[in-house]
């Protein structure tokens, strides 16, 4: 059963593009395969998670080099089976949704094949028992995400976006590969069991360096600050791809990597601090980016960055169980947000711009209802799924009482308020404000088909009730669900303090009302006429245009949007300079110094030497005799001189 959890998606991926299955049955078979996998995953959750019976599968020997012995082995412990829930359920529902969403696309089979292969790679990643098997899944996820983003490969924009995603992921992969090599050097083995058993005996500095490499990998994969640009660019792919990649699977890989290495991370306080701050800044950056974005899918993508930031903050404050719980909750409501956004986009003729939506509440009431539920869950509205993890994590951040946690708390709290704001903005612009879409498409607007509605309803149930039903399982005090898979150092235990202390988080009680308040205050702002002078005072001479100070805000706005969505800073300052530096290095060292001392220099030296030697062959016997005699005298002379 456990092996078929990994193998069935691969089979589905192969069946989807099989010529015998055709365009109709290939995708259906692929969907059936992933649904069976989801059922098996649930059984595995009951067995390995709830019944506390982890499974270890050794598929065979991979390679041996010196003392390093790597095997094809899988492990299904409580962390892996908990990851199976979001991965498999969201994959299955996304495939069901895509059956209707991608119905008119001529390359449907290829699409389903990619979806299934993606699930396969992700399952390999979460079930791998050593770092190398994990790395195989990691690379597979990166590759298939490239293929999925580039699904409409005739689109130039999709090509660019896919390349961007792939190349930024390469940065993370480089980090992880270096970590792998360092791991071999430090631990002598890549198996998790060996690595974690040695954690407390390893030099702290080496451990910190190892963790920083892991964090680089997680930063790229989970779209954290600095390497998050690919997440919004990847919205070029079809909407189900966005739901699959950016809700449940690919972006959670980085967080999973960090959670899996909790026994190591716990021994490095510097690593924890870096992770906490990285997560806090990412949460804020993502939430701020979502505020000014006009593309519907990109708003949700920015919110993904923000929510992943929360998970990373949790890991930074050693609360790995909340990170896992928020990851699962986030998968439900974010997949619902993406899929309902897909329904909206599908309904109004592939327009994604929020400026051209509005008034859809009357035409798409069902979609509005599920999107409202997902947004409320996202903004941690009380007793929705998101509330149970997000509220608890905000409470827990303050428990350690140090500067790092205080900074992370402020960042996360501002991000929480901003996340409520951008969710409200999204809902208002798309559904509640006056209609702005072209008149020609209004008769075509329709609710999604029943095949597309079923996944929305299932996910809606998940994003309302899942948190309430399972919060004691994932966060309960003293339960043995994790069986030391998620290790929390005794010094970092905060669960008890947060549950029992009355004073911690006095601000938090006001957070939900604050979000509601923001929701109400935002509503009229859309209809309020602007008093700023852009076109009303449009001067018709250049000098007047330059003096017009009232328009400066638009430059700021443009810059702000530019910084967040296109990362001009990254492009102009880091990438350009790195390229210039590498040109200099290439010219002066690679093609300069090394060439001169190496092959080119040797060749020139031998050419010139042989030219000199050639001068001696004059054709006169007397000259040759002179050279022989001179050499006979010269060599003993030098010999005596030296020795």
């Amino acid at each position, binding site marked *: 059963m456990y092996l078929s959890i990994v193998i069935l998606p691969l089979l589905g991926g192969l069946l989807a593009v099989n010529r015998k299955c055709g365009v109709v049955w290939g995708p259906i078979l692929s969907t059936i395969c992933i649904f069976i996998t989801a059922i098996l995953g649930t059984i595995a959750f009951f067995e390995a998670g709830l019944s506390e019976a982890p499974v270890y599968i050794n598929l065979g020997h991979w390679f041996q080099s010196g003392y390093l012995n790597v095997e094809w082995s899988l492990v299904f412990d409580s962390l892996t089976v908990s990851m199976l829930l979001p991965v498999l359920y969201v994959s299955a529902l996304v495939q069901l949704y895509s059956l209707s969403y991608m119905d008119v696309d001529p390359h449907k089979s290829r699409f389903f094949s990619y979806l299934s292969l993606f699930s396969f790679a992700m399952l390999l990643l979460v079930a791998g028992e050593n770092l190398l098997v994990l790395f195989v899944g990691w690379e597979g996820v990166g590759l298939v995400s490239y293929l999925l983003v580039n699904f409409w490969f*005739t689109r130039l924009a999709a090509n660019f976006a896919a390349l961007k995603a792939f190349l930024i992921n390469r940065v993370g992969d480089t980090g992880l590969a270096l970590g792998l090599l360092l791991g071999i050097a430090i631990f002598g083995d890549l198996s998790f069991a060996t690595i974690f058993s040695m954690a407390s005996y390893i030099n702290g500095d080496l451990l910190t360096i190892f963790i920083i490499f892991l964090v680089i990998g997680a930063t790229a994969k989970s779209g954290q600050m600095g390497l998050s640009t690919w997440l919004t660019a990847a919205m070029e792919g079809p909407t189900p791809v966005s739901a699959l990649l950016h809700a449940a699977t690919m972006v959670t890989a980085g967080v999973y990597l960090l959670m899996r290495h909790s026994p190591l991370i716990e021994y490095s306080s510097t690593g924890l601090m870096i992770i906490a701050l990285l997560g806090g800044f990412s949460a804020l950056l993502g939430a701020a980016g979502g505020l000014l974005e006009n593309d519907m899918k990109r708003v949700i993508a920015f919110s993904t960055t923000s929510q992943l930031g929360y998970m990373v903050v949790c890991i930074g404050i050693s609360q790995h169980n909340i990170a896992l719980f928020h990851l699962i909750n986030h998968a439900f409501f974010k997949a619902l947000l993406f899929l309902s956004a897909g329904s909206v986009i599908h309904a109004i003729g592939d327009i994604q711009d929020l400026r051209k939506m509005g008034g859809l509440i009357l035409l798409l009431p069902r979609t509005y209802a599920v999107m409202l539920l997902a947004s409320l869950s996202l903004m941690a509205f009380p007793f929705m799924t998101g509330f149970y993890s997000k509220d608890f994590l905000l409470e827990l951040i303050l428990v350690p009482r140090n500067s790092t946690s205080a900074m992370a708390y402020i960042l996360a709290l501002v991000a929480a308020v901003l996340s409520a704001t951008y969710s409200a903005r999204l809902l208002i612009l798309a559904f509640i404000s006056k209609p702005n879409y072209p008149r020609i498409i209004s008769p075509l607007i329709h609710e999604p088909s029943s095949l597309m509605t079923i996944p929305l309803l299932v996910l809606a149930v998940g994003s309302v009730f899942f948190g309430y039903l399972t919060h004691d399982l994932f966060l309960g005090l003293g339960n043995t669900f994790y069986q030391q898979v998620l290790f929390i150092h005794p010094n970092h235990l905060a669960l008890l303090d947060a549950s029992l202390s009355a004073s911690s988080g006095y601000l938090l009680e006001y957070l939900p009302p604050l979000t509601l308040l923001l929701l109400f205050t935002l509503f009229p702002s859309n209809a309020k006429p602007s008093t700023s002078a852009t*076109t009303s005072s449009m001067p018709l001479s250049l000098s007047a245009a330059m003096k017009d100070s009232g328009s400066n805000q638009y430059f700021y706005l443009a810059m702000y949007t530019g910084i967040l969505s296109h990362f001009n800073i990254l492009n102009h300052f880091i990438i350009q300079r790195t390229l210039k530096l590498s040109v200099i290095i290439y010219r002066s060292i690679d093609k300069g110094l090394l060439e001169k001392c190496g092959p080119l220099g040797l060749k020139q030296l031998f050419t010139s030497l042989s030219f000199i030697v050639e001068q001696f062959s004059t054709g006169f016997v007397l000259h040759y005799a002179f050279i022989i005699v001179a050499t006979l005298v010269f060599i003993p002379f030098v010999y005596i001189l030296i020795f």
Partner: protein
Amino acid sequence: MSGLNIPLQIVHLQAVPKTHTQKVQRLYRQALRLSADWYWERAQWREKALIIREHFEANRHVQNPKEQEALLEVTEMLLAKYHHPQPFKYASAPGGTKWERNIPFPEEVSVVFVIGWGRLLTSHLPSHSCSTTLFPTTTPLNELSLT
């Protein structure tokens, strides 16, 4: 990607305006679109559109070519100054979300597959996304390419 506005393709699609009237008309159109990018609420945009119209109307009777050139230049500068970082594009317009999605093969390079008993079909793609041309079964394979 709204960062990729694919200006080159737009340049190819748009013919260079010949007359002065055409130039002014296009600038007016661009100004309206630009204002709609910033003010997407229709009531607000209408106000701005009237103001833009007023500015254009004010200079309707300028006859001096040099003045006309100067006005055009100033308008272009203003359009560039107030440019929107994420201009709205219709889905099927160049740079839109449906642009270049599943382009049908051109007639001259449509791929021909030979299946089974000499039955000749074009690509397996549906007719709306691919030009289908059936060839007589007697045509030798080497003559089928690039027809």
